[in-house]
């Protein structure tokens, strides 16, 4: 019983808090407090679950409706979902602190707190579920909440961006649903473990290849991979920056987590599974094209939000390399990269929001002087900037280093070279980002001081980045565990 409560808490807690916020929506101070407290409690609950599951117990499992395992929807605290729940809670807490300065009464009245909590709950649901159809439902819940957050100010640009986002995502959702339906038609089950066992025992058929292709298309679109990356830089720059930072951290990574679960888990890529053998070379091309095109795209922009939006997609490309390698270490490298990227991307958007607040413009050509007026901010911002660029000893260096090392080990040197070129472009883009915002003399208007709450939120995430950078061994061990857990789904039973 305690196990079930612990396991479902990361989903139930945000949704209960969201309902509370809706009831009390007239009292803005109360909703703000609930948003903060719920996210704090969420972090505590996720950490408890994490240590409970890693404390030598059996994997916590909750099957709903009193059915035997594998028939109905079940949640389980397996890696890497378990670890991602903790990172999600950390990011949600940082976002709720950041929201103290960025989200004013008008945005709170428009429903910011309820939508953000609901989105956090939906993301956690996707990370914990074992059921394919349930996974689809969480994706749609997160999408609806995200559309609400994106259009919070109801500006024409936001409506326009949301139309782009919604239409692409609805198409992806349809493909995913069809793929899930086909998997059900082939295997007769929606449970990931049982479907994997059935798929592994059969030779690949036309139907299973079609299902795999549909799921790849759908989740690749959700993750923002080439050639479906266009919706992301066309919509993310319109939203309120707190919401966009959380999207940047969580939503594309949620899509990539689903790719990992389906391909590394269910189809057994990396565990010698034959389910998706034909698709593995495709991953390599997708990853390479995503990295090169989106790193180049980031260089073309001076608007901070657009530039960072391109970087989000480019980073997902790096993770896909891990999947393309189809080795256990490759999958582990992808998981490592995912955790690093969630923290860093959100932090960069927080930083962009504070630069905008201090200098009055999203445009880097108009920003400047942050190092002189806000030296502490410049230092805190340097952590995610250098980490994304891949400068040692920060987390991005280890993430890139492992990915490139594994690609040379797996005899796919060409993709390692692509990753290096992409890394070079990222260094150029990130160094111009930091030096434009912090070193350059500001034009015209004096630079204001950044608010304290924003700085605290950034410090939390920068601290996490530093911790990963200085002690990469811990995260790497967890990533290897994740890779093994994903492989064991394909190994039968799960």
């Amino acid at each position, binding site marked *: 019983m305690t196990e079930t409560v612990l396991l479902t808490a990361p989903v139930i807690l945000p949704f209960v808090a969201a309902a509370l916020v809706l009831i009390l929506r007239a009292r803005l101070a109360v909703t703000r407090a609930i948003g903060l407290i719920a996210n704090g409690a969420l972090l505590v609950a996720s950490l408890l679950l994490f240590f409970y599951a890693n404390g030598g117990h059996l994997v916590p499992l909750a099957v709903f409706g009193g059915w035997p395992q594998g028939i109905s929807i079940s949640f389980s605290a397996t890696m890497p979902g378990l670890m991602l729940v903790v990172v999600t809670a950390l990011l949600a807490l940082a976002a709720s602190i950041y929201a103290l300065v*960025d989200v*004013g009464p008008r945005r709170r009245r428009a429903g910011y707190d309820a939508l953000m909590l609901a989105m956090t709950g939906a993301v956690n649901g996707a990370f914990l579920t074992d059921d394919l159809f349930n996974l689809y439902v969480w994706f*749609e819940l997160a999408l609806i909440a995200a559309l609400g957050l994106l259009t919070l100010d109801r500006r024409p640009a936001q409506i326009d961006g949301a139309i782009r986002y919604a239409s692409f995502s609805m198409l992806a959702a349809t493909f995913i649903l*069809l793929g899930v*339906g086909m998997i059900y038609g082939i295997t007769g089950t929606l449970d990931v473990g049982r479907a994997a066992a059935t798929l592994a025992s059969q030779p690949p058929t036309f139907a299973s290849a079609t299902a795999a292709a549909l799921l790849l298309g759908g989740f690749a679109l959700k993750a923002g991979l080439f050639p479906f990356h266009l919706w992301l830089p066309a919509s993310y720059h319109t939203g309120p920056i707190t919401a966009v930072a959380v999207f940047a951290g969580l939503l594309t990574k949620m899509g990539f987590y689903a790719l990992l679960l389906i391909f590394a888990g269910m189809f057994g890529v990396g565990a010698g599974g034959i389910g998706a053998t034909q698709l593995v070379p495709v991953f390599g091309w997708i990853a390479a094209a995503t990295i090169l095109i989106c790193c180049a795209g980031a260089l073309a922009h001076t608007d901070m939000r657009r530039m960072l939006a391109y970087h989000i997609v480019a980073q997902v490309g790096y993770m896909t390399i891990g999947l393309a390698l189809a080795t256990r270490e490759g999958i582990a490298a992808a998981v490592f990269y995912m955790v690093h990227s969630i923290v860093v991307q959100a932090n960069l958007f927080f930083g962009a929001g504070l630069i905008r607040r201090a200098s009055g413009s999203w445009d880097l050509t108009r920003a400047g002087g942050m190092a002189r007026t806000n030296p502490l901010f410049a230092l805190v911002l340097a952590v995610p900037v250098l980490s994304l660029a891949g400068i040692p000893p920060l987390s991005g260096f280890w993430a890139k280093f492992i990915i490139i090392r594994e690609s040379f080990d797996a005899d796919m040197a060409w993709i390692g070279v692509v990753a290096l070129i992409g890394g070079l472009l990222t260094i150029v883009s990130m160094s111009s980002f930091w030096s434009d915002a912090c070193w350059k003399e500001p034009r015209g208007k004096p630079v204001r001081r950044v608010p304290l709450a924003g700085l605290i939120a950034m410090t939390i995430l920068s601290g996490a980045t530093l911790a990963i950078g200085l002690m990469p061994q811990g995260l790497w061990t967890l990533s290897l565990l994740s890779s093994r857990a994903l492989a064991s789904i394909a190994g039968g039973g799960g």
Partner: protein
Amino acid sequence: MTLLYGFVGAGIFACALYMILSRNLVRMLLGFSMLATGVNLLLFLAGRIESRQPPIIADSARALGEAADPITQAMILTAIVIGFALTVMLAVLVLRAWRHAHSIDSRNVDSAESLGTPQEREPADD
């Protein structure tokens, strides 16, 4: 019979995708709504549509005999609800866009494109 349903589903899909490619936002919206219908039909097919018995075990029997698959029906019901929610959401967005731009041609609904170019000034956040 299954083949017939398969082709019908594929036909609906093709029409829906064609409509989604349209520049007219309302036509795109209808395309999405049709796409959801096509998927529901194909989901139905995944659960094998030949059997019409409700999935209820008789008093004396221990196992279920020939019966319709309840899981696909539950899936379709959920998918209908989600599809409805998303269609309404998109309809609201299109309505908002029309109120601002007075056009449902997607070439005229482009305020997100100009945002973030150096010339653009935008209102303050709060």
